[in-house]
């Protein structure tokens, strides 16, 4: 007897989820949520791409400055040479 009630409960729950739940998922408010979620994803994507570009540019900065340092070192090492006649 208890089992039957349990089953009936599940059935009712299923019907409610199937109708009201579907309604909720397709409602105007839900659509708003989806829109915002999509916007968020797009923003996230943009910010990821922006970060990638920024990292790249900063790597370039570091590389060029490093090259400068090495060039300076090289020119420092060049000693003046005097040759006897």
């Amino acid at each position, binding site marked *: 007897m208890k089992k039957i009630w349990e089953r009936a409960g599940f059935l009712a729950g299923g019907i409610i989820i199937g109708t009201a739940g579907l309604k909720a998922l397709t409602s105007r408010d839900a659509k708003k949520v989806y829109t915002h979620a999509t916007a968020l994803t797009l923003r996230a994507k943009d910010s990821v791409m922006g970060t990638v*570009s920024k990292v790249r540019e900063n790597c370039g*900065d570091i590389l*060029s*400055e490093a090259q400068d340092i090495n060039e300076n070192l090289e020119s420092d090492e060049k000693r003046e040479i005097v040759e006897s006649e």
Partner: protein
Amino acid sequence: MKFSIEHESRRRIRVKVCRNKMTLVEADVLEYYLAGVEGVSKVRVDERTCCATIHHNTCKAVVIDALKKYNFEKYKELLPEETGRKLNRAYQEKLVMCIVKRTLFKMFLPASLGIAVTVCKSAGYMYTGIKTLMKGKIEVPVLDATAIGVSLFRRDFKTAASIMFLLGVGEILEEWTHKKSVDDLARTMSLDVDKVWAVRDKQEVLTPIADIKVGDYIVVRTGSMIPLDGKVVYGEAFVNQASMTGESLPVRKEADSYAYAGTVVEEGACIIQVEKTSGSGRYDRIVEMIEESEKLKSASENKASHLADHLVPYTLLGTGLVYLLTRNIVKALSVLMVDFSCALKLAMPISVLSAMREARGYGISVKGGKFMEAVAEADTIVFDKTGTLTHATPKVADVVAFGGNDRVEMLRLAACLEEHYPHSIANAVVEEARVRGLNHEERHSKVEYVVAHGISSVIDGEKVIIGSHHFVFQDEKSVVPEGEEKRFDDLPDEYSHLYMAISGRLAAVICISDPVRTEANDVISKLRSLGIENVVMMTGDSEKTAASVASAIGVDEYFSEVLPEDKSGYIRKEKALGRKVIMVGDGVNDSPALSEADAGIAISDGAAIAREIADITISCDDLYGLVRLKELSNELMKRINNNYRGIIGFNGGLIALGVAGVIQPSSAALLHNMSTLFIGTNSMTNLIKE
């Protein structure tokens, strides 16, 4: 516009545009403007960060000065129809997103869901694998499918997912490579034809394309691209419409037919009434046309997958063998797990992409990786003399009149007829007339072009022909006026001769001097040292002229008085002998030979059709572009082979160690991925070091 200096070092400045956002066009305009500033060697404007990175070899002040003078509205005109920024952006995004997605999946997706996603994704690979197998081929898709399938079968979903990830990245890179090369080529081509022959007051006038209005009449002839959409009102032409319809056979156009912009007149001439003016999708059409010609040509597959394909049977065989010997399925599968094809598929497109980018830096655009392969393997190079070995600008040295005609009048007449054809000798005649101040009214009827022979037309009821010795004397049966045979025989040999006959009697001989490029000799010897064994020269000139040029520049073989079909015939013959042939040409008459050769190279000043058919176009001022191309191709092949050996050797070692049980599968996988990454990054560096 305000800029803030974000970073500076000796030869590099990074400035930020003081605003939050930049459109693609704004970034493009700034990049084009800065690239044109003297002393600036490389510019990169990123629209996402609003930063311009400027590499220069002058001082900071020059760059700052240039930035001060910048004005968006003023320099907007500089921009071509397409710049490729959108394309690069799209693929960058795809690539980064692919990596981000993978990381997120790995970090946050519950294991059971991850498995479901992996299984769903693998279905596609399984399908292509089985399809390839059904065709009786054992190629990369089969290996991919086996590796993925076996991983799934062993419930090793992580490996399956990472195989698919690497394959996906490789695919994106491959597609990017291809799209980018097509895009670059199309851009250079769409910028090209900017002047057309318009009919104004019954005369043909060379007019900038921007000045053409709807309803105007324009004339298009053999070898030219139809610049604008319109209706044919007069004439007859065979037009290659592959870009529109995919049909490679030329279509006949006559009065009332519709002609489309971007299609090419293969033979004939017609007058077109313009129905749509410039700017309507010309670029897209050219892209389609190039892709079409690629499709027609891609009988052999590109080197990257070709190499990987070779490996597939061995990998499968190895797996089977290990199983037979050890009777241990885990060890056998370790062969499959260290998957060669991932590394190969990733490293090859990167190498090719990077080589093409490098080639573009030297003014060489290549339509596909396989043509660089062909150049690297080539042992025979065929030159069309005019415009390649010689300067593209021959000069009129002398005009010798016959039959009592006036020299100046003859030159005027010749120029009048020759001005309609995009050929270097024709240009010389027209130029000479212009320099001498000879104006000419268009008083002839329709001009007919006989490919590689000459042209004919009717003036005041008399038939006038201009062309080679063969055309004028054998084909048209013209004669030298009586009593002037001696003068005719005494014509100087060092010049090329252009013969003009009126009503079947020789009227004049125009002597054309076309000096050989000074670097030709050096270029040929350099090419030899890079692996070319057989240098061939083809020319429409007489035997004597050809012989003297041939000995001066040191070619192995030369052919004089050749016709277009002879050129392609020779190439076919050489190919049948098992040689790989490069053809270098510039004109309408080289087109069949260019498409016949393994790699057809067009020199940029040539006819539009030659550039469309050619696999590679070079826009350098000298012939050293050829040497650079050959060097690059050789180096590329060397790199690809090194990668190939490196990948096989290293991973082969991993397999051996795995089978022997020395290293764990997880450390093998790590080493495998590290080596792939290393080879990939290494492949991005320049091939020719400065």
